[in-house]
Structures are given as C-alpha cells and as structure tokens.
C-alpha cells in the first residue's frame, strides 16, 4: 500500500491535468459518487460534524489495527473533497493518520475550502478524523499493555 504522502502526490498529479477550476470541480463531483457512504442509520446527530451551510456525517471503525472511515454530506462538492480525504487516510494505522500533513488540498487549489470562514465543516471534519485516530491509538496501546 502506498504511503499517505504518495497518495497525496497521486491526487495532485490527477488534478494537474485540469486547466481551470470548472474542470476541477466537475472532477470533484464525479468523485463524490465514489464516496464510501456511511451506514444510513448513522446519518444522525451523533455522527454529524457541524458546519454552517452543509452537513457532514463521519464514522470510523477500527479493524485489524487500521482506521476505516465512512462519511456522507448533503453537499456534493464537499462530498467530493471528503472522498479524497478518505482515499488518503482510510485504512491506515492511527499513528500514520495522526502524523499526516495534509497538503494536497492546498496544492489542488481547494485551499479556500479550508478557510475557517467557509464553515463547510471540512476543517472540523479533518479534526474529527484525527480525533478518531487518536482515540483508537490510545485504545490499541491499552490493549497491548493489557496483554
């Protein structure tokens, strides 16, 4: 499996072929459909990440020492960006996720979506993904100690 860094580079290369923002957004809309959607039952307030204008739900399971994310949003471009985040972070060990530097969002020209002012929940989403990783990290360390 490629590293977080490698997957980010992959994405940057994919986006490099687009000349303008429209193509980039159209591609995000395509990606939105590939999102590994969250269990319908979990589209409730326990899993919601509050953004101002669009809603985002996020879940994470811990399987074989890896964090598996699934998510959903009612806004399609946001969903596209989330699918990229999941492609980069899902299925990895907590430690990797915690230490990841997510630079691709900026590099593919979506920086404004990370602006705290956008209130589209993306920043909060990244924070929540990390928090899950931290929680599972602690859990697995505790289990090791218990052994």
């Amino acid at each position, binding site marked *: 499996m490629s590293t977080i860094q490698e997957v980010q580079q992959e994405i940057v290369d994919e986006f490099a072929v687009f000349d303008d*923002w*429209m193509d980039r957004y159209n591609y995000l809309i395509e990606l939105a459909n590939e999102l590994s959607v969250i269990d319908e039952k979990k589209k409730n307030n326990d899993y919601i990440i509050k953004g*101002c*204008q*669009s809603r985002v739900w996020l879940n994470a399971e811990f399987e074989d020492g890896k964090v598996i994310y699934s998510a959903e949003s009612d*806004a*399609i*471009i*946001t969903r596209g960006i989330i699918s990229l985040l999941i492609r980069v972070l899902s299925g990895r060990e907590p430690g990797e996720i915690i230490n990841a530097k997510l630079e691709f969002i900026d590099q593919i020209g979506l920086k404004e979506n990370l602006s705290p002012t956008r209130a589209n929940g993306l920043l909060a989403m990244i924070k929540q993904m990390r928090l899950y990783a931290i929680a599972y990290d602690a859990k697995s360390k505790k289990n090791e100690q218990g052994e």
Partner: protein
Amino acid sequence: MSMTGFNIEKIRADFPVLAQKVHNKPLVYFDNGATTQKPLAVIDVVNRYHSELNSSIHRGVHFLSDQATNAYENARREVQHYINAKESHEIIFTSGTTGSINMLAFSFGERYIRPGDEIIITEMEHHANIVPWQMLCERKGSKLKVIPFNDLGILQIEKLSELITEKTKLISVTHISNTLGTINPIREIINIAHRHNVPVMIDAAQSIQHARIDVQELDVDFLVFSGHKVYGPTGIGVVYGKEKYLEELPPYQGGGDMVDEVTFEKTSYNVLPFKFEAGTTNYIGAIGLSAALQYIEDIGIAKIAAYETEVLNYGTQQMEELGYIRIYGRSPQKASILCFGIEGVHMADAGMIFDKLGVAVRIGSHCAQPVWQHFGMTGALRASIALYNTKEEIDYLCKAIRQVKTMLG
C-alpha cells in the same frame, strides 16, 4: 441610464469596490443584505477626519475637539432629519442594530418588564430581534410571543389582536424581513398596538436604505438600524426613541460622558442623548454614517426604492423563467431581498460555484433560523439588491445559476 434621473453609471463610479475583480471575474456584489459597499463620499470623510480633524469629542476646549464635536452633533441632526425625528436628542448612537436592540431590551426591561409580562415579535425576525428578548425573558421571567407568517411570507397580522393582552409590554417587529423581503405593515401594527397602549419597536436594519421612514408620521416609539447596511461605516448604529420613553429608561452602559456627578456614594446621570452614550463614541463612524445618509438624500430615497424594485422584479421574473428556482417570500409588498433555492442543488455547492464566477451571494439561514424552520429547511441562497445593482448583473446571476444547474443539478 436606467430610469429618468437615476444615473446608474455615475452611481457605480461612486463605489470603488465595484470595480474589483474576483477570481479574475468582475465582481457582482449581491450581498447587500449583509453589508453594503461605501461610496467615496463616506470613504473620503472618514479619511479626512483621520488625517485632519481627529479628536475626542465633547470634553475638549480646543479647536480639533470643537470641530469633531460639531461634526458629531451635526451627524446626529442629519439622522434626526433623515428619519424626521422631533428632537435631535431622540437619536442615540450605538455600535449597530444589534447593539441598539440589546440596549433597548436591557433598559426597557429594567424599567417596565415584570415576571409574567409579554413581548411580541414575529416569526420572521433576525436573531438580533429574537435573542435579546429571550435573554430578557429569561432574566425577568417574562414571555415571548410570536406573530406567524404564512407560506407566502406574509405576516398574519390578523393574529395580533389575539396575541395582545394586558400583559403585553412591547411589540418589536422588523420593517423589512432580511430573508423574505416582506415589507411589513408597520403602520397598522403600530395603530393596533397603540390602541392597547403598547409601544412598538421597529427593526429598520433592512429598510433604512430602501424605504422612506418618517418616525413622527408612523408614530413609532423606537426604531433601530445599522450604519454599515446603509452605505456607512461599520461599528455605528442608531436608536431612535420617543423622548418620553428615553427620559424614563435607565442607562444601559456606565462610563464617561453619560454621567453628571460621580461619587462613590451616588452617581447621577447626564441628560439625553448623552445618558445612553457611555464612553468615547464611534464619532468617526457617526460622521461617516451622516455622509452616507446625505449621499442617499442627494439621490432621493423614492428614486432609489423605485429603481431597486425594478431590479428586484426583473430578477424575480428572470429566475422564474428558469423553471427550477423556488423563491422564498412572495409577498406583493417586497423589497430588495431575493431568497431562492435551485432544485436539486445544495446551496453550499451553488455558493462555491457562484464565488468562482465572481458572484457574491450569501447562503445559509441569514441569522433567521426560525424562518427556515417554518419551511422545514436550513436556509437558502440570497441575492440582496442595493442602489448600485443592475439588470445586467441579474442577467449574469441567472447565467451563473444556469451554469450551477448544468454542473450539479
């Protein structure tokens, strides 16, 4: 020239920000309900006071202080004149509409509100005209009642008579809704209220820039608005209050200038309007606001209103022709605000694309969540019109909507 006597090219040239490019596209600014842009008349006067005449007001004996004080007190008279208040000391400068309503909620509450008393607002209020009353009600054990609107966004004024009781102490209503655009029948509301001896506060944040307001003719008891929504600076707002009420209300904030004598045992307060203007006021903001009101008067509010209505109606019609737009707020009495949804498209997605196209619209609840609860939604897109907007900009907005629909719908 769009209408006789309304020289839109000249007006647009007065607002330097309109010449901006955004993402390499000409800026199309339709976020005027949030804040309006500033004409040179305002920018220059602020600049001039910063560069030549800045000085603390009221307590100085020197030239600069005199000049600044005169300019500040003239600004008060300009506001008085603009809304035709009887006395200049009925004009209080505050930090904005929100500051104004909070001041009134506190001072009016301290003076008149007892446990069990009732305050009436409407279902279409901005949070600024909800939360201060909720906070007051919580503090005083009083009750908030709400006049509903129907699905067209028209206030169900016929319910008011049922809502008013002997416990009703105040009715606080927005003149023009910042989401539905509805122009409320405030004259009628005031008449009904006064028949029950209940004073009325009008939130004019969205009307001061779009409609003629004559507080004496309306016989309104309190009226509030913000400078930044009427082409003036940020950080300045107004409370108009009838003298008889302002005399009776206790001060809101304590500090310099609002006092007469201060000892540790007993402090007595200054006369109106100073009693309500504690500390160093935003005198440069007030002077800027005055320049903004003069700018409007020079053009004529009636002309502005007619022009804006023309643009609003054109916008409504163009959007309807698209066939997949739902407009929220269909009152025949409507001004300047156009809230809408695009079928099959999330407002957040649309907002991102609009931005890339240089179009500034707002999305969300517009600080009026109960309005969207009414419709079972969380918000909508909003294009809000100012005197510098044009039909060509409406065309561009509709083109942008079509593009959004193609990409997302």
